[in-house]
């Protein structure tokens, strides 16, 4: 079991957002460059939106990872729903103001004007659809005062058009939409992830037919693809231990991909 061929690949696809696991895909890479350029512009607010599993959080984490080397960046990956807490946490993380008591917006803006940064600090807000309208209004006022620059990510659903939302309609200067991966992009993503960790044998097992099935099952959703690959390599690890004759090392078995999809809930059976 310790020398299993599939254990390492399995761990690679654990669904954790880690900027070091960021895989460069042409289209995503292009968007990331756009995002980096936009951040350097004197924009008040940048919107990053797309369907769930399109890599918004990963891109935000990557941005945080890259920008934090040069300027003050604060990443809020778990939304702070309470308004007082939100301002207090921002004041502490960006301006170093430690106070357990709640602070007002006016006091926060005074703090911002008191602390002079060479570049406007950037706040990255993940899952911004969870913030209340009142808090979003305060965020708007802070950005209008040019105290902070915000990059926010939002889910785009079929029911609502995020861009049309009242909060963002007049204030967003840049919006970037992330798309689901195409089969080719998914293939690059999976193989690059495997090759990055020297899993050459397993990477060679994945052919175009396998990718077609995976893409069809996951609909280009990176998160679902991660889940599926994790289950698939778990399954292969089990067969490797209990019944190695059933493993074809030249290609992934469509049957096992479908079994993994049943296990992850992508197929209802």
């Amino acid at each position, binding site marked *: 079991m310790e020398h299993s061929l599939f254990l390492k690949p399995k761990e690679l696809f654990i669904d954790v957002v880690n900027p070091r696991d960021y895989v460069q895909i042409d289209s995503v890479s292009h968007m990331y460059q756009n995002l980096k350029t936009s951040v350097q512009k004197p924009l008040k607010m940048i919107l990053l939106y797309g369907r769930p599993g399109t890599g918004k959080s990963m891109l935000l984490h990557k941005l945080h990872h890259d920008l934090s080397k040069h300027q003050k960046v604060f990443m809020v990956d778990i939304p702070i729903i309470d308004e007082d807490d939100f301002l207090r946490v921002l004041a502490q993380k960006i301006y170093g103001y430690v106070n357990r008591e709640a602070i007002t917006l006016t006091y926060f803006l005074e703090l911002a004007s008191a602390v002079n940064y060479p570049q406007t600090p950037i706040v990255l807000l993940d899952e911004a659809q969870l913030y209340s309208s009142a808090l979003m209004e305060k965020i708007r006022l802070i950005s209008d005062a040019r105290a902070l620059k915000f990059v926010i990510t939002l889910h785009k659903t079929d029911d609502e058009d995020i861009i049309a939302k009242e909060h963002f309609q007049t204030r967003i200067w840049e919006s970037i939409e992330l798309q689901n991966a195409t089969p080719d992009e998914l293939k690059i993503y999976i193989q690059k992830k495997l090759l990055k960790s020297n899993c050459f044998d397993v990477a060679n097992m994945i052919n175009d037919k396998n990718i077609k099935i995976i893409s069809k099952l996951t609909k280009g959703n990176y998160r679902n693809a991660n889940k599926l690959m994790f*289950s698939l390599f*778990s*399954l292969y690890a*089990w*067969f490797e231990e*209990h019944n190695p004759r059933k493993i074809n090392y030249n290609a992934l078995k469509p*049957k096992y991909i*479908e*079994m993994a999809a*049943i*296990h992850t809930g992508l*197929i209802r*059976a």
Partner: protein
Amino acid sequence: MLDIPSLERRWLKYKIKRSLPYIALVIAILMIPSIIIISLKTNNNAVPPQTDKKIIQKKVQPMPTPINEAPMVLEPSMQFVQSLPLSTSATTVSSPSALKTSTKIATSQKSIPSLTTLPSSQTKQMTTSLPVIAPIIQPSSTNKPSTINRDTAAFDIHEIEERFKNNSNPHLGLYIARYHYDHGNYSEAYNYALKTNAINNTIEESWLIFAKSLIKLGKTDQAKKTLQLYISQSNSDSARSLLESLEKGDSK
């Protein structure tokens, strides 16, 4: 931890469920030609009875025409009689008297056999039975019956006899003599054959009818003499054979 046997079972179920539409499609594709073939076969089997019906109809259709052509057929009047019970029973069910009339008609209809099935010799019986029907028909029918119940054959022979009296055509005389002989009126046959021979003494059949009528009337000697006379004049084989049979005593 993965439960692989359970997963395999679920996968098998999934594959079966997923392939069901394709299986159904394949079955449908296979079934459609066979259904078409079967339906075509059944249609082919179903066609001959239709043609048979047509043939039967075609066979049946010519039937009325010979009836119309025959002078003895009284079919129109019989159809009229047959149609009466239906109309009366349909309109006067609540009336007991009408019911009686309808039943009478029904019974009288039963007593009258279809003319189409009757031989020509029975037509006289029908003419006698028709007056029995007439009183029942008259009250219920508003239209006068257009049929004329008559012995057309008798009427025609009288007409021919009249014509023969007027123009003395030997062929008419021969026809009348033959008619009477066939109908057993041997004295009439004798008279007309005699008249015909008087007009034209070369008609063999007229001489033969004359002789045979004499035989039937019991005048065998006279018949022999007549035949001998005719044989001497015409050398007729038919007359000779009749004479021979008469002499042998087996004349008909």
